């Protein structure tokens, strides 16, 4: 019946012996319906979509209800939203940055603290990474931008910030206007983050993607 190599021999690491095999004990209902077909229908989420026969047949109806009840925990499991713990992912990314030699980012003091020895307790600063993240998010919000990456240079003493934004955009737009919009939005954002200081923004349109099928309807 099956060309599954697993069936050729005992499966190491398998669960309680016979659980899967016993379950394959498919049976034929008195009306001639195979139970496996009803199970497949339930697992595919089609238990409510009954054929004319199923609407009439007490055997099929009873088994569909039975299977639907047994299956509901798995339907719940499939529907349960699962999010990766951010701390876990961040730790792995920090490791990657270290391996890639990208772990240190210039820091920009947020207050005009006196540039004397040591950091005053309670001072705040902003790493270039935070600026990069904000730049990326705000650039991606600009209509027509699909993806954005950024590179940020901070000249700490002068508070001069140089931002390079690389974007991939939707096909069929005025690219000059788009670049200008991105530049303006990014410059505003950076200024709001760091306060007074010179901000230079360069926008690089790196790629043009075919318009999304859903973009036309949106």
């Amino acid at each position, binding site marked *: 019946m099956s060309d599954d190599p697993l069936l050729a021999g005992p499966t190491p690491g398998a669960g309680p012996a016979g659980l899967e095999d016993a379950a394959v004990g498919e049976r034929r209902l008195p009306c001639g319906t195979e139970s496996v077909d009803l199970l497949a229908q339930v697992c595919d989420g089609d238990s409510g979509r009954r054929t004319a026969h199923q609407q009439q047949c007490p055997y099929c109806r009873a088994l569909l209800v039975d299977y639907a009840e047994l299956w509901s925990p798995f339907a719940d499991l499939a529907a349960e939203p699962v999010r990766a713990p951010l701390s876990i992912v961040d730790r792995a990314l920090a490791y990657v940055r270290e391996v890639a030699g990208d772990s240190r980012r210039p820091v920009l003091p947020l207050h005009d603290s006196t540039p004397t020895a040591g950091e005053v307790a309670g001072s705040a600063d902003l790493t270039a990474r935070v600026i990069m993240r904000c730049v990326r998010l705000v650039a991606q919000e600009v209509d027509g931008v699909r993806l954005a*990456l950024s590179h940020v240079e901070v000249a700490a003493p002068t508070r001069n910030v140089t931002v390079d934004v690389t974007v991939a955009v939707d096909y069929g737009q005025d690219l000059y206007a788009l670049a200008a919009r991105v530049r303006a939005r990014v410059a505003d954002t950076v200024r709001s983050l760091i306060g007074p200081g010179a901000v230079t923004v360069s926008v690089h349109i790196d790629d043009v993607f075919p318009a999304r099928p859903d973009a036309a309807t949106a």
Partner: protein
Amino acid sequence: MPAVQGSIRSGEASARGLGARPESAQAIEDGWLLAKARGGEVEAFEVLVGRHRDRIYRISLRMLGSREDAEDVTQDVVVQMWTGLAAFSGSSSFVTYLHRLVVNRCLNRIRHARTTVTLPDTGDPQHPRSAGVGERVQDRAELASATRALEALSPEVRTVFVLCQLEGMTYRQAAAMCSVSEDVVRGRLARARAGLTAAMREWT
């Protein structure tokens, strides 16, 4: 064979794990980020990971049944993605590559005790990392028994169940990921479904 047709259709219709957006748009975006990441841009890699981290963790959690194991595998996969960037040929879609990576890490973990590299600062080393699944994974009893039933499946059958039933992959996609035929995938999914319902019948 109407039963087979029905299964394929619904398998494709339930492509929940691939998101509402067409895969091609996502694949194009992934491809762009991947190219940037291969060029050494860590930020592009971070964005790529951000797009797929929930998927990585979710599959690991369903495969392993334990949050801690799933967290370990998620970290491993992220690091392995970075070191394997050059090896990714681009002949398959990135999502396929990623699924295969995650599934293989999980299967490794199931088959051989602990083969993972522990990252620095992964928390309290005294913390026990292998308690019974039912003790901590799910609060709700129903989901707990579902998880328990999943654990009773053989790893290969569980893999197909996770990919097809939970992640909404087609038989073809799952077959490519597991390097078996679509018929084998279909057979394993049927066995998973039958096994799980039998387990639930036994326990309720």
